[in-house]
């Protein structure tokens, strides 16, 4: 007898039949019927019509039947909230049942019924269950608090459940502790700044005790929670490490990895000369290796994390190279990760073995893997100098196989080897040139062209080779076009006599026939350079190149540090900070490794803000990926520009040296100083337009804001003047006006209530509808004395942002209900988004960069703010008062670019680039945010702030 029989009744009157069976007197029949209902439910059939009948079966002492009914309830309560109320009584009764299993089941199920009305009834039973004598009930109740919080956060706070939950951390039963920690962690995730998990040495001690005795899952929760703690000194750190180390031998790999996270973090605080430090390092290797013998999915996550660990502490796994050797039947995602780690671990000691393996992999079937293996050989050559020669010969062997994609990858990496070891392996160029025709991928073509250009003097037929590429110039990808342009210019500078025609051809192709601004710019710059000063051109174009770094793809150190704190999480799998992909729900708190301090030998860490140097040798520099425009821009004011900026000739020497003849001058117009993408005649037209127009409009605005000045900015932040929200006519004589403000980090709604009626008003209360950012009154509306006719009272109502959330249109719309002894009145108002900007909205530079790049360009919105007379400094300071933080500033061609970040109360980041043209009355702004809807509001806010008090 199997359950498949439940699926077979597909006849017409099925629901009807089930109904009859559900109401049958026979228990057994009832149960069978409920089973049939559940079976239909699982395959997606709608059996909600049976709701009352199924609920009727709930009052039974048969546990199985009860559970089945509960299953049904959880599924359909949402669609039938009124009916679900019918079940409440039974729940409440079950919560009093002498059997703890039934009590727990009832409280568990109630939490799963996501109906607002039910939650009210849930509070009392839940409160009882949280204090139940049976730990099984308590632990179930702890999870229920998290469920309830998900449905109605405000309710949970108001009822004080969070405090009860915190108390449960000290419970005598380890399972209860673990569940309380799990529930608090989940709640904390939606409340980034709340101090829910306030860890102190006492609570840490309790957690560590519970850690030994709770289930494997509980251990994971506790370990993850421990990882957020920062020990006071190295002694505490060591004692925690000692108590966590046994977890490394757990059979559950998630426990192991969470333990590794705690240890990696707390190790940071231990002095390196401590014996224990060495012991700990040794203890970390075996469990990591063991993770690799688990199922492939587990291996994958483990490998992604090992990749981080190897970068952070290479010493842990340096002798374990062999476990990363690839088995031919590993899934491809495991193979690629293993390969990556092999290269990171490659050193002079093991390079021979690694190379032999890589060569083996290069003959495998899977194309992606083979490519990566070939590339890895090149990376080995660059990393371990002694092996370079062997690597090159291996690559040549591979080129001989003539397998198309192998050859192409090999050429790409040989280019890098040439750059790393100039004048050493150029003898292989001839072999490379033989394969010119088989290259069809842009990267390989570009690499080959680079080689030909760079070594033009040694390749007899370099001009012919390059010319052959030039024929299909327009069909090539940009990468190849740019490379070809540069290569031919190099060739020209090396062999000027024979190649004048060729260079002219490529310059005109690049400048006249191409739509690509990068290509045109580069073309113009070469053209100008060649025509102005060929000697300088030679110096610039044929300048000695900086050596390329040893390691590629290294994670940037601050990011690595943050990721180390997130070992075992999704962030560690994606190698991105959580802020880059977990939106809204979580506060972007950047975790940092603790810094070892005190204990005498602080000479090791001279600068407290720097992480303690873990890697003994200097960390290799990271090559910023090309095309990282913003990165380049932001770096400019960090360090003096290196060779990366295009060498612009300061003044035009018209016709001074017309190497290339006519045409050029007219082309070059006179705009070299201006934005290169701009054509000739645009010049500075927009700058001249505004001032005269701007003046009157502006003064008008100023007057308006002077009115509001009295209410205005005591704490410096920006406040809109009060407006009438509810006229007296519509509210039986009650007039409400108000505004919103953020003062000292607290959101406030400032309201004036005026009684324009004839009778006294009392019993005021206020309520908000759900809104986009969860605004809710943080306390009751306090009107102390009755409001007599013609009297006005001013109230500041503090607001919280943990109320229920619903997207409004427009986004900043707020629907409010105000009640008094006469009636209830409804109105809606719009709050300025600036009140949601939190004080800790300053982003790290690097994070800003990464985030800016990460947000798709579709999310970028551009606005023009007209008629505001500010320079970048006043803009910065004025915006700062609204919690808009300027992270970097740079000046380009008289324009100040400000890079700013804003964080909303719900954790959403907004990134802004503000361009201020000194002396012109307008700014341009680009807004990037994962939630593009807010862009318009941010613009309005900027407009307000920048235009106000521009005379002040």
């Amino acid at each position, binding site marked *: 007898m199997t359950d498949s029989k439940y699926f077979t009744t597909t006849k017409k009157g099925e629901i009807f039949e089930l109904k009859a069976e559900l109401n049958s007197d026979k228990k057994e029949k009832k149960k069978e019927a409920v089973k049939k209902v*559940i079976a239909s439910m699982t395959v997606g059939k709608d059996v909600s019509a049976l709701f009352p009948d199924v609920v009727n079966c709930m009052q039974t002492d048969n546990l199985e039947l009860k559970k089945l009914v509960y299953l049904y309830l959880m599924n359909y309560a949402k669609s039938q909230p009124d009916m679900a109320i019918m079940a409440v009584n039974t729940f409440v009764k079950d919560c009093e049942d002498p059997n703890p299993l039934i009590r727990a089941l009832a409280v568990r199920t109630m939490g799963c019924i996501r109906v607002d009305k039910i939650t009210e009834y849930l509070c009392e039973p839940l409160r009882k269950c949280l204090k139940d004598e049976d730990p099984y009930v308590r632990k179930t109740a702890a999870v229920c608090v998290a*469920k309830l919080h998900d449905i109605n956060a405000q309710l949970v706070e108001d009822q004080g459940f969070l405090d009860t939950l915190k108390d449960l951390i000290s419970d005598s039963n380890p399972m209860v502790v673990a569940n309380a920690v*799990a529930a608090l962690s989940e709640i904390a995730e939606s409340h980034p700044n709340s101090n829910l998990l306030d860890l102190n040495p006492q609570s840490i001690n309790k957690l560590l005790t519970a850690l030994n005795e709770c289930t494997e899952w509980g251990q994971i929760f506790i370990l993850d929670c421990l990882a957020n703690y920062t020990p006071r000194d190295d002694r505490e750190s060591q004692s925690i490490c000692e108590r966590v180390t046994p977890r490394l031998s757990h059979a*559950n790999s998630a426990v192991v990895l969470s333990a590794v996270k705690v240890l990696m973090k707390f190790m940071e605080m231990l002095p390196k000369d401590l014996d224990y430090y060495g012991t700990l390092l040794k203890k970390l290797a075996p469990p990591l290796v063991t993770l690799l013998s688990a199922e492939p999915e587990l291996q994958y996550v483990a490998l992604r994390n090992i990749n981080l660990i190897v970068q952070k502490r290479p010493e842990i796994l340096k002798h374990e190279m062999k476990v990363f050797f690839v088995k031919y039947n590993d899934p491809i995602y495991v193979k690629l990760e293993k390969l990556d780690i092999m290269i990171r671990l490659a050193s002079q000691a093991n390079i021979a073995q690694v190379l032999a393996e890589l060569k083996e992999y290069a003959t495998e079937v899977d194309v992606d893997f083979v490519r990566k293996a070939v590339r890895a050989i090149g990376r080995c050559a660059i990393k371990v100098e002694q092996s370079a020669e062997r690597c090159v010969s291996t690559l040549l062997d591979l080129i001989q196989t003539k397998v198309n994609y192998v050859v192409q990858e090999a050429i790409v990496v040989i280019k890098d080897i040439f750059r790393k070891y100039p004048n050493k392996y150029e003898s292989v160029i001839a072999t490379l040139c033989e394969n010119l025709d088989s290259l069809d991928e842009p990267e390989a073509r570009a690499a080959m062209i680079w080689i030909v250009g760079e070594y033009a003097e040694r390749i007899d037929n370099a001009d012919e080779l390059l010319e052959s590429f030039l024929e299909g110039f327009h069909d090539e990808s940009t990468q190849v076009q740019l490379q070809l342009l540069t290569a031919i210019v190099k060739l020209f500078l090396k062999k000027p006599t024979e190649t004048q025609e060729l260079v002219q051809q490529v310059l005109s192709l690049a400048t006249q026939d191409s739509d690509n601004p990068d290509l045109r710019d580069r073309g113009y710059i070469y053209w100008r350079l060649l025509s102005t000063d060929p000697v300088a051109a030679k110096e610039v174009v044929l300048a000695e190149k900086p050596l390329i770094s040893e390691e590629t793809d290294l994670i940037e150190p601050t990011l690595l540090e943050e990721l180390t704190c997130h070992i075992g999480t999704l962030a560690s799998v994606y190698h991105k900070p959580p802020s880059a992909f977990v939106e809204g729900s979580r506060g972007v708190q950047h975790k940092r490794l603790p810094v070892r301090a005190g204990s005498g030998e602080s000479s090791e860490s001279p600068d407290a803000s720097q992480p303690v140097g873990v890697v003994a040798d200097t960390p290799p520099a990271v090559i910023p990926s090309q095309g990282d425009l913003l990165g380049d821009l932001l770096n400019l004011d960090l360090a003096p520009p290196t060779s990366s900026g295009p060498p612009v000739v300061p003044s035009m020497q018209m016709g001074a040296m017309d190497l290339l003849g006519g045409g050029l001058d007219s082309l070059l117009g006179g705009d070299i100083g201006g934005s290169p993408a701009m054509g000739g005649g645009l010049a500075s037209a927009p700058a001249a337009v505004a001032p005269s127009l701007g003046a009157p409009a502006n003064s008008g605005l100023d007057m308006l804001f002077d009115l509001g000045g009295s209410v205005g900015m005591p704490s410096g932040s920006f406040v809109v003047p009060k407006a009438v929200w509810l006229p007296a006519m519509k509210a039986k004589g009650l007039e409400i006006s108000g505004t919103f403000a953020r003062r000292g980090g607290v959101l406030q709604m400032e309201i004036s209530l005026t009684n324009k009626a004839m009778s006294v008003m009392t019993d005021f209360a206020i309520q908000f509808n759900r809104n986009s950012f969860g605004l809710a009154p943080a306390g009751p509306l306090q009107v102390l004395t009755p409001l007599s006719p013609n009297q006005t009272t001013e109230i500041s109502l503090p607001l919280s942002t943990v109320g229920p959330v619903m997207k409004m249109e427009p986004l900043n719309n707020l629907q409010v209900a105000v009640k008094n002894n006469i009636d209830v009145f409804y109105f809606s108002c719009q709050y300025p988004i600036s009140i949601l900007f939190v004080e800790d909205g300053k982003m790290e530079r690097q994070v800003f960069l990464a985030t800016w790049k990460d947000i798709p360009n579709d999310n970028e919105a551009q606005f023009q703010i007209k008629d505001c007379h500010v320079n970048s400094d006043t803009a910065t300071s004025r915006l700062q008062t609204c919690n808009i933080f300027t992270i970097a500033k740079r000046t380009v061609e008289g324009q100040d670019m400000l890079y700013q970040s804003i964080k909303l109360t719900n954790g959403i980041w907004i990134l802004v680039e503000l361009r201020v043209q000194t002396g012109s009355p307008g700014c341009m702004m680009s807004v990037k945010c994962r939630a593009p809807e807010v862009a318009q509001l941010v613009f309005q806010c900027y407009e307000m702030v920048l235009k106000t008090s521009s005379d002040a």
Partner: protein
Amino acid sequence: MIHSLFLINSAGDIFLEKHWKSVVGRSVCDYFFEAQEKAGEPENVPPVISTPHHYLINIFRDRIFFVSVIQTEVPPLFVIEFLHRVAETFQDYFGECSESTIKDNVVIVYELLEEMLDNGFPLATESNILKELIKPPTILRSMVNTITGSSNVGATLPTGQLSTIPWRRAGVKYTNNEAYFDAIEEIDAIIDKSGSTVCAEIQGVIDACVKLTGMPDLTLSFMNPRLLDDVSFHPCVRFKRWESERVLSFIPPDGSFRLMSYHVSAQNLVAIPIYVKQNISFFESGSSGRLDITLGPKQTMGKQVEGLTVTMHMPKVLLSVNLTATQGTHKFDPVTKVLVWDIGKLNPQKLPNLKGSLSVQSGAPKPEENPTLNIDFKIQQLAISGLKVSRLDMYGEKYKPFKGVKYITKAGRFQVRT
């Protein structure tokens, strides 16, 4: 935490879904299907897939994809471990974990999933606790249930659920008290063309089947515990005693369980029991090639090697084979291009050999890649690492149990490159 679970068969049908929080629409699986299509082979689907609003973490077990949906930052290993536990529980309950058994037992499956996870937090994942809560289906029980009207859901609180030893229930009674241990070692190795070992390691486990009355407290000690420096234990093992005395002291769960697993990777400790001489070559001209494989014993510690099988994934261009084996049977599947040679026992006097010609698609170029040999074997009565149990003691109970230890060595992922 874990939001929802979808079970998807290899044809791409979602045949079961379960939501622990609000319902997540099936359309979220489209991202999974996309990744699946991109991956080609089902084994190659990446375990973590991100979608605009969710993360999909999946495992592929028994030709079923277990796809879980999560919405917040959750340790992925946590989810993967849990999914494996779900698959194991199904296996445990229904004998096999397949689409048809899951569909046949859909109500039990739902009850199980409900019991295993609450609001995305694991609730009861220990098999003995689950079995007390929900009785596994048996023909006898379902008959009894229909006659007596009793249910297969336990009405009492499982005793293990709360005690500090959640893995054992109270009041266990047996007439025959017995404790058996199997030390199983698998050799993972890569042997290169010339026969030298590229890497080799041993994955060992000690599986136990303990049927003892009451609350026995066992101590298992080894002759050579030093071998074991990389171990992971069942939660019942007292780690402190292991650290200080190198003995396994524990109150066992009732029934079968994995007591410990260990890992031996020191190269000199890993003996390679067999050697392979092979020569596989394809001729430049003409569309053919030759194959010649011989296997022989190497370090077998005087034991018999049995269950010997060689599996090769041949190049795609191979059309057919014409081979003769001196021992065993061989089979070539022209669709999957897999050649399997089932040898059986290895006779040191007369070494098994497989020899013959290969024919390749005419006109196709000479295959670039060389097939790797996957070798399977078994050696009874031997733990290749040399691990030996010295004694098993029982405290806390008065009776004398039957005790036994069995050793077995197997090939794990044992690969020979050509």
